[in-house]
């Protein structure tokens, strides 16, 4: 018998923010599949108008509770670019180290607590605390290290306090960094166990040709600033981000949507990996190889694996960064800020993809106009098109309705959407 069913998931669980999935299939044919975003707007871009520059990173970090460090760093970069400031090498290294630890804590949160329950058929990580406590402890150990190092460098793991325009309010001690270097070296075996764990999971076989957008590598796997690139061959400068994002409004979403060369594009770990694979740390490339992940991979479910690969990359690179910081002596933590009139754009790769902040300043450094383009808002259109294609394929194959419902949810979760962030 051909499948007829309606799926109506209001407020998808185990994602950040509020989104709904609606699917209707009649006689094995897809009638409709919709990814709706119903999150309330908070109007950050309006809030900032009239505020002095020093408010921007502090307020904008609050766009997101998971990637507040990324928002703070993108905001700082936009202000510094507007004022013609270049951060010192020490500041660059510390910011990248901080960024890496946010990536690690966010990816581990997603992989273990949000994504993994689908693969072991539970509704959350909580039952696993009773059945396999060692797995939850392993996740907690990695996350704790990442968050502790965020506290050490950024002052606080969530809504950081030491990160300011011009650098840092204060620096970690060398003794602290030495201890973190050992903890990072020690965490490698926990990442190996994570790799083993994800090897047990069956990643759904699904593929839809997609354009992937990220920062473009310039000597290293990029996270903070630089040119923008897409797998369809588009290259733009950071300040031209609007030509890369082309935001527009749709009726089914309180978040804006984006497009570039096609109807939609994707950002995130898989996009970064597809564009910059050769610049991954060799240990990370090796993990990618274990899962048959090579560029350009068009399976959105592989974003989970791309995150795992990046966990290895950021840990290895953080050990090197700490070594370099310890090799030098401490310089002044903070540059003086001299506001001037103009526009500044900051592009930063946050866990869920490329993030842009842009501010126009008057000559006293007050914000005249602001614009933030969020990774998940860039992904929404692609999620919609993936969802249509996935359900179409499975409706024809006559999959059981429970399977389609689960796969549709897993698909959206693979993007690790940060929905309240996307609406902001």
């Amino acid at each position, binding site marked *: 018998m051909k499948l007829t069913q309606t799926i109506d998931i209001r*407020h998808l*669980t*185990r*994602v*950040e*923010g509020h989104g709904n999935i609606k699917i209707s299939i009649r006689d094995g044919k897809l009638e409709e599949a919709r990814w709706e975003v119903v999150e*309330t*707007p*908070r*109007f950050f*871009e*309006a*809030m900032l*108008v009239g*505020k*002095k520059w*020093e*408010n921007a990173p*502090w*307020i904008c970090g*609050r*766009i*997101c*509770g*998971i990637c*507040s460090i990324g928002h703070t760093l993108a905001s700082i970069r936009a202000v510094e670019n507007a004022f013609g400031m270049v951060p010192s090498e020490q500041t660059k290294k510390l910011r990248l180290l901080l960024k890496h630890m946010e990536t690690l804590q966010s990816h581990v*949160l997603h992989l273990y*607590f*949000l994504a993994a*329950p689908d693969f072991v058929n*539970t*509704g*959350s*990580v*909580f*039952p696993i*605390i*009773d059945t396999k*406590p060692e797995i*939850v*402890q392993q996740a*907690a*150990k990695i*996350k*704790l290290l990442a*968050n502790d190092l965020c506290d050490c460098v950024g*002052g*606080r*793991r*969530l*809504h950081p*306090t*030491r990160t*300011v325009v011009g650098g840092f*309010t*204060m620096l970690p001690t060398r003794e602290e960094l030495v201890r973190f270097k050992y903890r990072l070296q020690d965490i490698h075996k926990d990442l190996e166990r994570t790799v083993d764990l994800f090897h047990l999971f069956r990643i759904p076989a699904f593929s839809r040709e997609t354009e992937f957008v990220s920062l473009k590598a310039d000597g290293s796997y990029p996270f903070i600033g630089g040119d923008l690139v897409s797998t369809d061959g588009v290259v733009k400068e950071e300040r031209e981000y609007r030509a890369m994002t082309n935001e527009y*409004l749709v009726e089914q979403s*309180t978040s804006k949507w984006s497009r570039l060369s096609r109807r939609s594009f994707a950002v995130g770990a898989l996009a970064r990996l597809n564009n910059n694979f050769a610049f991954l740390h060799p240990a990370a490339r090796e993990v990618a190889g274990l899962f048959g992940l090579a560029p350009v991979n068009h399976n959105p479910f592989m974003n989970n694996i791309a995150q795992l690969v990046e966990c290895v990359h950021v840990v290895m690179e953080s050990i090197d960064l700490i070594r370099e910081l310890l090799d030098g002596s401490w310089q002044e933590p903070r540059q003086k800020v001299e506001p001037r009139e103009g526009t500044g754009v900051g592009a930063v790769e946050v866990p869920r993809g490329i993030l842009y902040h842009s501010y126009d300043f008057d000559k006293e450094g007050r914000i005249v106009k602001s614009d933030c383009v969020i990774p998940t808002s860039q992904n929404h259109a692609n999620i919609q098109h993936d969802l249509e294609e996935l359900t179409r394929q499975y409706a024809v194959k006559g999959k059981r309705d429970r399977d389609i419902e689960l796969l549709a949810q897993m698909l959206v979760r693979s993007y690790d959407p940060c929905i*309240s*962030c996307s609406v902001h």
Partner: protein
Amino acid sequence: MDAKTPPPRTYLGIPVPRPKVAFFELSSCEGCQLQIMNNEATLLDFLSLVDVRTFREAMTERSDDYDIAFVEGSVTRSDEIERLKKIRATARVLVAFGSCACFGGVNQLRNRFADPAWVKRQVYGDSPIETNDAARPLEDFVPVDLRIFGCPVKKEEVEKIVANIVLGKSVVQPKYPVCMECKANENACLFDLGEPCLGPVTRGGCDSWCPNSRFGCWGCRGPADDANMVQMLEILKNYGFSAETILDRLECFGGFASHAAEIRSTLKTS
């Protein structure tokens, strides 16, 4: 997993009744809920203290049978008022969880603009978007039993408060300001470093989280009992900070909304 009753739990070795708790979010960054998951070192202890019934950010199962509701975020759209009223009707204890729920948080920064239509236009142009005219705290719509301050909330404080509820102890918020904790931590005074700070008037309990990082307090926890605002403004002026800088901090999280409004009105008349 089978559905039988969970095994009896102990917290730090002592058997405790586990209250049924639920987490909800209105307009927010969900960071305060994330702070629960950020409790890595004590996460398992904390989870043994409570019976989590609903936590959409972390679990698929949900239940309308709960004793304590933690509600994060502020109210910005009519459907949120309905959700909040339903939660209030179900919960024995309603906790305003974090500064957005307690005071409106950063969300209420948009309330300072006289024209809500202008705010909408800044983001959505002429396209229609449903939103209330202002971002409001929970207590504007329902009675709130307990407030946990902070942007974000401090995990140690949340654990202490929840442990007190479970053990039937009364929950006492610190009456003293952040400044006292900062002094106890032997930090250099931010004013001496040339930075503005609301530590002298902001409610303590965060262990002077921001000043510990040489970053002046922005008042996210709202005013301490008997906050001496006149003296605070005097100090800020004496150290040469402009009314704009003072206002930026006082109006950032909504806890000092009445004081900010007063300063704003004097600025307009002067």
